[in-house]
């Protein structure tokens, strides 16, 4: 997702959003359009009344909007943005999960990418068993797949 080619217009127009637990948020259009969902709504002129977001709770929406705000700021440098992102995504599993779901639902590509990389960091270096325990995943391989996995994870040593 790239910010629009024309400079950010502070039309002052705001979008009203309502989280699933009935918290309302007011956010500038220029910030909200980081989400492709809102971008299309704004372009199609459908932005009367609060937009209900039944899949996102208030706490998560607040976080997401804070991220969008930072990323819509034209004065911030790339270095500062990277530092901000590193701190932003350094959260526990539960918050990360909610952020992932929200970024996916609201179609915010950069935030989704950031969250995905964080999950990848949680996977790096671990054995498959440890990964399963971290994410509470069940081993559901068929016997054929299990055999494939066993073979792939065996280093054949030789001269």
């Amino acid at each position, binding site marked *: 997702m790239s910010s629009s080619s024309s400079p950010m217009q502070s039309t002052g127009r705001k979008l009203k959003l309502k989280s699933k637990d009935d918290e309302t948020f007011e956010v500038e259009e220029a910030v909200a359009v980081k989400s492709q969902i809102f971008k299309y709504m704004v372009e199609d002129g459908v932005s009367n009344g609060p937009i209900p977001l039944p899949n996102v709770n208030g706490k998560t929406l607040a976080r997401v909007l804070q991220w969008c705000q930072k990323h819509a700021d034209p004065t911030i440098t790339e270095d500062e943005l990277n530092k901000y992102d590193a701190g932003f995504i350094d959260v*526990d599993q539960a918050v990360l999960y909610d952020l992932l*779901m929200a970024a996916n639902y609201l179609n915010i590509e950069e935030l989704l990418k950031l969250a995905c990389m964080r999950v*990848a960091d949680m996977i790096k270096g671990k*054995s498959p068993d440890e990964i399963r325990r971290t994410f509470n995943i069940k081993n559901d*391989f068929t016997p054929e797949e299990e055999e494939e996995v066993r073979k792939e994870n065996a280093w054949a040593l030789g001269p």
Partner: protein
Amino acid sequence: MVSQAAEIMGERVVDWSDFPKELWSPIGKSLDTGIDVLRFRSVCSSWRSSIPPSHPNSPRFPLQFPHPYDAFPTHLCQSTIYCIQPLDSSSTSTAATSSHIKGYLIKVQESASGKLRLLEPLASHPIRSYPRNTKTLNLLNFRIVEITKAYTLRFGSFGRAVVEDERRYRYRSVPGVNKVVMFPNSAWTNAEGCAIFVIFLDGKLGFAKYGEDKLTFVDDQRSDYDDIIVYKGQFYVVDRLGVVFWIECSSLKLVQFSPPLCGLGSRKHLVESCGALYVVDEYLDKDRGRMEGNRSYFNRRRELHNTIDFKVYKLDEEWGQWVLVKSLGDRAFILGSDCTFSVSAQEFVGCKRNRIYFMELEESRAFNLEDHCIADLAFSPDPPSWLCATNLHELILTT
């Protein structure tokens, strides 16, 4: 699925089984080492089907590669240096080093027969005391992290001749090749885009794209390049004076990246540590001198040069100047035969902090930055028992 809802290090455990399956793909694609992709695909059925094992056109080794200064058929081998650790005995481990068992550094090289050789990371000898009757290593029993990749140039064209040589333990490295680097080299790399650089003889710099059969000379007026490294996704080369250049790959133009080091050592090495670029200046007891042509190079090599000192410099990129580093702190630098890297010493068996581990002829040595003393010790201790013992239960004879 019963969610234990246990407090693990103060975190609520989340049940990811409801996670949208299509999101595992971008997560898997964010992993860039072959070993992490392998692990990802070994977790469960939906993860396995969400990403392929690698790019369909991944670089394949051994790779036929032009001999830098002669006409013999040669090929490039890739090795990977890993940190290997036993699984934590406790059922919950989120921190990487929560286990108090230190990791072991190994170098794994793919042989022409497809089998893997376990080598010492510094000298690249086969691990001497590794039980000979161990045929496979079951990776599911370990935590494995890739540290870096290393490349060597060997004689022989690809095929049966090389397999035969290897079976007889004849690994003939091409002499006069100082360093080979390739980039990119992640799990998702398309071989088409790979660039390979070689420093050979007295410091000539050569370049070839993956699959090319001719070497292009970079800056052929000069032959005083000491080392080359991939740093932050770009190629950097250092010359005898300690000037670091960035290489612009499409034009093979060298752009000066640092001022001269004004170090009085004879040989410069490039090392990355904690995201910063370092030059290690190696002092020899005899001046290497200027060398012209192949013959004088090999004549020179027969004179023994002893390393007597090291100085380490860090590049302060903001001010564009070199800063002398008095101590590496908890880090150790490893100057291997075909790669350089740094580690946090306390995490590894047999690794001491504030040391530079290097090769002198065929021997491994350790330089202590604190007292400038060089110890004549083997960098690689015997493989720990947990690396050997478990395999006796998994003795699988491979065809």
